[in-house]
C-alpha cells in the first residue's frame, strides 16, 4: 500500500464507516498522525533498548489505531511486529517499523489534505 493510498483509505473509512464529516475526518487524521508518530518513536526506542515489553505495548497500540483507521493490512504488519517483539527479534521489529513508517508517511506528515 502506498503512503498516499493509506491516507486516502483511512480518510474514506472514517467518513463512510464512522460517519465523520470531512472536517472531523481530517481532525481525526491529525490526532492519528500524532499518536502513530509517537508510537513509532516508542517502538524504535524500545527495540533499540531490547525492551520487549515496551515493544509489545507500542506495537499493540499501533495495531489498534490502524484497525480503527480502517487499515487492516497495516494492522497485520503491526501484529507481525508485535509477534517479533514477543520473540525478541528486535531487528525484525525495527524492519517492520520502518515498513510501517513508510506506508504511513503521508498520513504522518499531515499532507494530502
Amino acid at each position, binding site marked *: 500500500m502506498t503512503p498516499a493510498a493509506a491516507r486516502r483509505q483511512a480518510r474514506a473509512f472514517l467518513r463512510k464507516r464512522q*460517519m465523520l464529516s470531512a472536517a472531523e475526518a481530517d481532525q481525526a487524521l491529525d490526532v*492519528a498522525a500524532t499518536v502513530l508518530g509517537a508510537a513509532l518513536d516508542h517502538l524504535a526506542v524500545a527495540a533499540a533498548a531490547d525492551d520487549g515489553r515496551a515493544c509489545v505495548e507500542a506495537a*499493540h497500540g499501533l495495531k489498534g489505531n490502524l484497525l480503527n483507521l480502517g487499515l487492516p493490512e497495516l494492522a497485520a504488519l503491526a501484529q507481525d511486529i508485535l509477534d517479533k517483539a514477543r520473540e525478541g527479534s528486535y531487528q525484525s521489529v525495527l524492519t517492520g517499523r520502518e515498513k510501517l513508517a513508510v506506508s504511513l508517511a503521508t498520513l504522518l506528515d499531515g499532507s494530502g489534505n
Partner: protein
Amino acid sequence: MSFTRRPRRGPRNPSAASRRPGRLQGGPSRAYGAAEADGRLSRLSSILAALDQGIAFVSPEGAVVEINDRCLALIGGVREAVLGQGIAVLDLETEDYQASVFLELFRRGAAHAPVSFDRRFGDRDVTVKLQPVFDAGLFAGLIVSLIDVTPMVEARLSVEREKSFLEQVITIAGAAICIVNRDDEVLTINDEFTAITGYNRDQALGRKRASLLRESPPSPCPAAPDGQAVRQSQSRIVARDGRRLTIRKNAAPLRDDQGSVTGGIESFTDVSDLIRARVQAEEASRMKSAFLANMSHEIRTPLNAILGLAHLLLKGDMPESQRESLETMRAAGEGLLVILNDILDFSRIEVGRLEIRPAPVDIDRLVEDARRVMAPQAEERGLLLTIERDPDLPRVLVCDPVRLKQILLNLLSNALKFTERGRVTLGVARPRAPVSGIAGLPVRFLVADTGPGIPEDMRQRIFEPFVQADDDVAREHGGTGLGLSISDRLVRLLGGTGLEIASQPGKGSTFFFTLHLAEPDGKTAAPRPGAPLAPAVDLGGLRVLVAEDNPFNRFLLQKILEKLGVGRQSFAADGQKALEMLLASKEEGPPYDVVFMDLRMPGLDGIEVSRRARQAGIETPIVALTAQASAEDADRCREAGMTAFFAKPYRISDLEKVLVSLVGDAGSSRI
C-alpha cells in the same frame, strides 16, 4: 233560519209588557210605527238567529218561549218539541247547578244575580248563563245563553296534558333539572335535583340559583342567551349537607312562541364518583405502566448481562453439545428481550409517554437497513426478501425514523415468521388513491408475503393487544401478540390511520399503512447520503465512561458517541483514573450507564479495573475494547465480570447495537 216566536196568547199585563227593555215587540217611542216595529223585530230576530251563542227565553212560569237554532243544536232538540215545554227540556241540570232551582229562586225574588256554570252537551263543552229579567222588580223571565267553549277547553286541556307530560319527564329524568326565570330564581326542580343537592322544593323555589348551589366556577344564568343552543360544562357545587360534588351539566334558555327568552333550564348529573373512579383508574394504569417499565428494566439489565456473556462464551471453544445448549440459552434470552421490549413499548403508548420525534429520514437507507436486519432470518428460512420502491418518491422525507423502522421491522418479522416458502416484499410507493386535503406527501409502506393468509374473521382482531391468529400460532411461534397492536398504534402516532391488511387465505397477506410525510424545508438539513440514521433508542440520557489510554481511539470513540447522541461522556486515560471515577460515581452519583474499557492500559489494565469495580459492588455494564477477540481474552473478560466484548475497529453501527442492547431502556427511560 229565523228566530221565531210561538204565538202568544197575549200578555197578562200589557202595560207592563210595553215597558220591558229589549222587548221584541216594538220600540217605546210613538215615532215608530207598527211597520217600523215589525222591521226592527225582524232585524233583531235575524241577529239572534245568526248568533253563535245559544239563546232561549223562559217565561216566569218556566216554559221555554223562545229559542234560536244554535241553542237547539247544542241541546239536540227540535223547536216544536221544545217550545212551550218546561225549563227541564233544556237539560240544564247538573250535580251542582240546577236551572229549575235558580228559576224558582228568581221567581220568588230570592236571587237576582245572573248565574254561570259549565255543562257538557255531547262532545261540546258549554258555559251556561242564566240571566234573570226583572220588570219593575217583578221577575219577567229568564234568558238562557249557551256558549260553546269547546275549543278553549280543548286548548286548555292540551296545555294541561303537555304540562303533565313535561312534569312526568322532569320527574323521571335521570338528571337533576332546575328551571329558572330571567332573574335566575328557581321556578321548578325535580326529585333528582333534590336527591343530588339535598334541597327540596320548599327550600329551593324562589331562591337564586347561584347562591343555592354555590357553583364553582360560577356559570351564567341559563336564561342568558348566547350563540350556543345548549351550553355544556363541568363544575363543582356544594350540596345542602356541605358535600362538594362535581357535576356535568347542560344549560339553555327557554323561549316563548315569539322567541323571547322567558327563563332558562339546566340539567345536570353528579359525576363525582365517575371522576373519582377515572382518577383512580388512571392512577392504577400509571402504576401498572410504571411497574411494567420498572420490571422490564430490572429484568432486562441482568438479561443483557446473560446475553452478553452467552455471546462471549460462544466465541470460545467448547464441545458441540455445550455450544448447542448455549445457543438455545442465548436464543431464549433474545426472545425474552423482544417480549420485554414489546411490553415496555405497549405500556408507554398506553400512557401516552411515547414521544414521536420527526426528523429528515433517508427513506432508501431506512428500508435498506430494515432489509439488512431481517436478511439473515429470511436466508435461514429460505425466503426471498426484496425491496420495491417507487422511483418517483423523494429520497428524504420527514418522519420519526426510529418508530417507522420499528413498524417495518415488526411487519417483516411477522411475515418471515409465518411464511413457509416464497418471498417477502418491503414496498414503498405512492398510494393509488391518495386522500386529498391532508398536508404532506402520501407514502404507502407495505410488507407483502406469500404465507398462509389470515382468515376474514381474524383481520380486525389481530390488531388488538395480546391477540394472535390462533392458539397454534402462539404455540409454534411464541410472542406476546403485541407486535401488530404496537405497530398499529405507532402508525397512528405517526399521523396515519392505522395498519390495514389485505389477505387471501392460501395466497398471502399484505400489511400496509399510509403516512403523509413532508419534505424537509430549507431550514432543515436533509441527512447526507451515508449519514447515520437516528439510533433505535434515544441515548441522550446516557452517561458513558470511556477508559482508553490511546488518544486517537479515545478521540474516535468520543466522535462516535456524539453522533449516536449519547448525552454525557467521561474519559479516563488510564485504568487507575477509570477505577477512581467509577468508585466516585457509585458513592456520590450519578452512576454511569455503561463503561467502555480498553483492556490494555498502563498501570491497571481493563481486566483489573473491572474486577475491582465488581468487587466494589458496581453493576454497570462494562464493555471490553480490544484489538483482538481471542478466546483467551474472552475468558479473562468474563472472569473479571465484564459484560460484553467489543473488537476494534470500532464501527458506529456496531457501537449503536451494543449500546441499544445494553442500555436502550435506561436511555429511553430518561427521555
